[in-house]
């Protein structure tokens, strides 16, 4: 067996916050990558997989642990590693050709050779006629092809891809995936190995040889799976479906296990809330209650009928679970009694049920309401709650959590909120 291309040893990434303990994004992540394999980092958004990719790319410096590239430590962007971005990251003022040549120019490759290599890369990726176009003239799929050509033209040994197809529509993404796999299978890609980040389970099973499953809070590798189907793979194949099912089960099993692991419940403010809208929740519950599901559904099947990706569906399911409207179990989701009651209730009844669930299961809502009740003027600044949240999570998460709670609380008429003054109050409700 060859020496590994890339090794990540005990990697840890944490952000410092003055007031409290570090916010840990990645904890003790280990990863080995060999030549000739495509590996997926699969996980929910916020599980730190993109952070890990940036650490491997040398864009971020890990707080702890080490990244070894061909046996030497990585201490910045490295020659043999190139990256494809989720947002394409094309320079709008450079033509396709100039965008592709950028990495070569940075290395001081002479003009003639630059042009030749760029032409080759563009031809390979199917963009031969677009060399003089500007990115804004291209469709999303074509833009990502440029991103791919720009990475390939430097002949990297390792190609990093950060959710490369998630900004594209379903059909375009599929075409790009199969094109890429075809090139890879035919040995036409000038790379030795690919590491890609994704939150799309089927995409990972379709493309990769190995899948590293990430769990969140803090991010760590929870499972490692080998995908041994030969290319080209068939999504409808029974074994393929079974694997997708299994991964769903693994990903939904995580959350309850974690709760049991911690005997003493952590600070009520420590869990970030996911930005899930009310209509989504109600819609999902209605879909679950109706036939063909009658209250219980298989997650992958549900995702497919609703055109959801795991990143949309899991937060939704988990939020319903948090509010005790539904339960996630082994890749399935089923409605509770409360959930059924919610579906059957009218507008006011739903609001009352939701308010009840919020007060029972979301400590932050309770806390805000308590403070408001105690104050003589029934007003409270959002800043203090945000500060308290920030002691437990990153500012982005704190903001997201607060916004979610504001939306929920307004709907439930537990409090009202003045965006301009950033102030909660008891003015309208009751």
């Amino acid at each position, binding site marked *: 067996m060859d020496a590994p291309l890339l090794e990540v040893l005990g990697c840890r990434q944490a952000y410092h916050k003055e007031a409290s303990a570090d916010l840990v994004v990645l904890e003790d992540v280990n990863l080995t990558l060999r030549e000739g394999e495509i590996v997926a980092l699969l996980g929910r958004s916020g599980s730190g997989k993109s952070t890990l990719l*940036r650490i491997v*790319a*040398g*864009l971020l*410096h890990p707080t702890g642990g080490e990244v070894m590239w061909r046996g030497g430590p990585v*201490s*910045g*962007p490295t*020659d043999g*590693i*190139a*990256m494809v*971005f*989720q*947002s*394409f*990251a094309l*320079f*709008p*003022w*450079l033509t396709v050709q100039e965008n592709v040549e*950028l*990495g070569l*120019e*940075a*290395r*001081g490759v002479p003009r003639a050779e630059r042009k030749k290599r760029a032409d080759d890369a563009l031809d390979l990726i199917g963009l031969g006629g677009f060399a003089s176009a*500007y*990115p*804004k*003239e291209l469709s999303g799929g074509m*833009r990502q092809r440029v991103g791919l050509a*720009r990475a390939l033209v*430097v002949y990297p040994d390792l190609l990093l891809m950060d959710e490369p197809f998630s900004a594209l529509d379903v059909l375009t993404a599929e075409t790009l995936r199969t094109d890429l796999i075809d090139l890879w299978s035919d040995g036409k890609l000038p790379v030795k190995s690919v590491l890609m980040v994704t939150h799309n389970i089927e995409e990972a099973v379709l493309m990769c040889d190995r899948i590293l499953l990430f769990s969140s809070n803090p991010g760590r590798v929870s499972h490692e799976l080998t995908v041994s189907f030969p290319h080209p793979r068939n999504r409808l194949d029974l074994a393929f479906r079974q694997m997708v099912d299994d991964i769903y089960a693994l990903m939904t099993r995580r959350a309850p296990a974690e709760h049991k692991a911690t005997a003493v419940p952590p600070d009520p403010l420590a869990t970030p809330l996911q930005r899930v809208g009310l209509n989504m929740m109600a819609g999902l519950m209605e879909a679950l209650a109706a036939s063909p599901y009658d209250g219980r559904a298989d997650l992958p099947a549900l995702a497919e009928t609703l055109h959801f990706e795991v990143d949309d569906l899991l937060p939704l399911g988990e939020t319903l679970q948090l509010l005790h409207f539904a339960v996630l179990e082994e890749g399935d989701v089923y409605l509770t009694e409360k959930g059924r009651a919610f579906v059957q209730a009218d507008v006011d009844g739903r609001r009352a049920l939701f308010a009840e669930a919020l007060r029972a299961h979301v400590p932050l809502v309770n806390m805000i309401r308590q403070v408001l009740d105690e104050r003589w003027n029934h007003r409270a600044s959002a800043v203090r709650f945000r500060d308290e949240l920030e002691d437990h999570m990153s500012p982005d998460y704190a903001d997201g959590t607060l916004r979610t709670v504001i939306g929920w609380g307004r709907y439930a008429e537990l409090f009202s909120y003045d965006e*301009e003054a950033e102030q909660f109050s008891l003015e309208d409700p009751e």
Partner: protein
Amino acid sequence: MSTTTQPPLAAERRLPNVWDIVAILCVFATLISVAHVARGTWVRIDAPGATEISLDPWRLPEYAVRTTLRMFAALAASLLFTFTYGTAAAKSQRAGIILIPLLDILQSVPILGFLTFTVVFFMNLFPGQVLGLELASIFAIFTSQAWNMAFSMYQSLRTVPTDLVEASTSFRLSAWQKFWRLEVPFAIPGLVWNTMMSMSGGWFFVVASEAISLGDNTWKLPGIGSYIAQAQAERNIGAILWAIIAMLVVILAYDQLLFRPLVAWSTKFRFETTSGATASDPWMLRLVRRTRLLRSAGDLVGQAATSLGGLHLSFRRDPWTRHGTQSRAGEIVWAVLIASLIGWGSWRAITFAAAELHWSDLGEAFLLGLVTLLRVIVLMVLASLIWVPIGVWLGLRPAWARRAQPVAQFLAAFPANLLFPVFVVVIVHFQLNQDIWLTPLMVLGTQWYILFNVVAGAAAFPGDLREAASNFRVNGLLWWRKVIIPGIFPYYITGAITASGGCWNAAIVAEVVSWGDTKLVAHGLGAYIAEATERGDMARVVLGVAVMSAFVLTFNRLLWHPLYSYARRRLTLG
């Protein structure tokens, strides 16, 4: 592949075409005039004809060229300043702490008040030479141009999209390459726009700074501003009309020849991923693109710039250490340095003020400041009442908006102080109250900013909202209050901020106006500064300018900034 085959027309096009001849003529005409002006600059100040102005209209083209060249010299200096100061402020956190507030203050200080003293400074640098005067004039123009350009650069550099930064880092562009490939292109649209605004502002200063009296001496640099001053002194209304015509031609020329093509070119750098509606190329850009000679010259410049920007210059430090902690000692040294600078500055200011001034002076300046403030407020209200309805009317009719927009921008570029004498003649003739009738002069040049921003806002107002409003039969006052005013508000604020800033500056030249021996003075802080300048009373000029800066800053902080951020937060569509 397509470049290797020559289209059949290629051979024909190799011959110079008509446009080439035009281009050659243009290039040589420019070179000759530059050489001519350069010769004039090195002349001694007392040489015959060096600083005398003739009112012969045939001398106007020469004067116009000299004035324009001054403008461009100042513009070059401003660009240099922008690229150094703006970049330093954005790149170094330490420098930014001091550079940004400083820029904010400099923006609000009416430099026009200091003109006399900068002239003395530059004349001492080159005693007895016209060059000193030239530099003083260029410096005055520079001070009206540089700040907002540097600000625009700073803001662009701070908002470069992170994914592009990551892409540049991961492809290992050196700092120099990153600057020219990523940061400068990203800053270009804002910079071009601000350069245009600066040019407009600069005309005002060029006219004011060419004719300078110091004690008993009056120097007049050959230029349109001096021509006007001379005409004013001789009460020659015909000459003033000639000057206005010359100015119109000059502004039209550089607008068409330089800025239209620049703006069209800069859309390439606009950071948007969808291709919007593209306006047709202005004729000058078409000329450059179609003319073989100009095009190959352009390509040559472009290639040189590209390879210069592509040089692998780097003072690369380990990219990771930059994120690390900065040295504690350096932090302390920096803090001490700034503190001592502030201490020294305030000590100087206090001793200076104590020696020359009295508390009553401050009171007087403050009261006069209130008078000028009242003027500014009244003018802003009046200008808004007039131009908002007109702007909305124009903006909602695309055919009109297209025509009105360039006209309004053109009017904003026109130096309003050229028109002052006309007003003076009217005021003197009808014996009007100076305190009231001199006031409109302040807003003469800046009201157009309100107009063209409102036109732009109304033109961008979404069609579905208009349809919804008429579907629900929202009419009359309600339509203004609930539909269109909130819709154009962010645009209106942008225009109003510029306009009110311009008003303050204009007060210095608008509150005292003379026509031959007749001198009209309105009460106000502008007149206070202008008269102190005339007496050479440095202390009171400084006081007046300081008080005015304070007024402008307070006005901005208490009124415009909150309004602006409110508009940005609540009234921006989408």
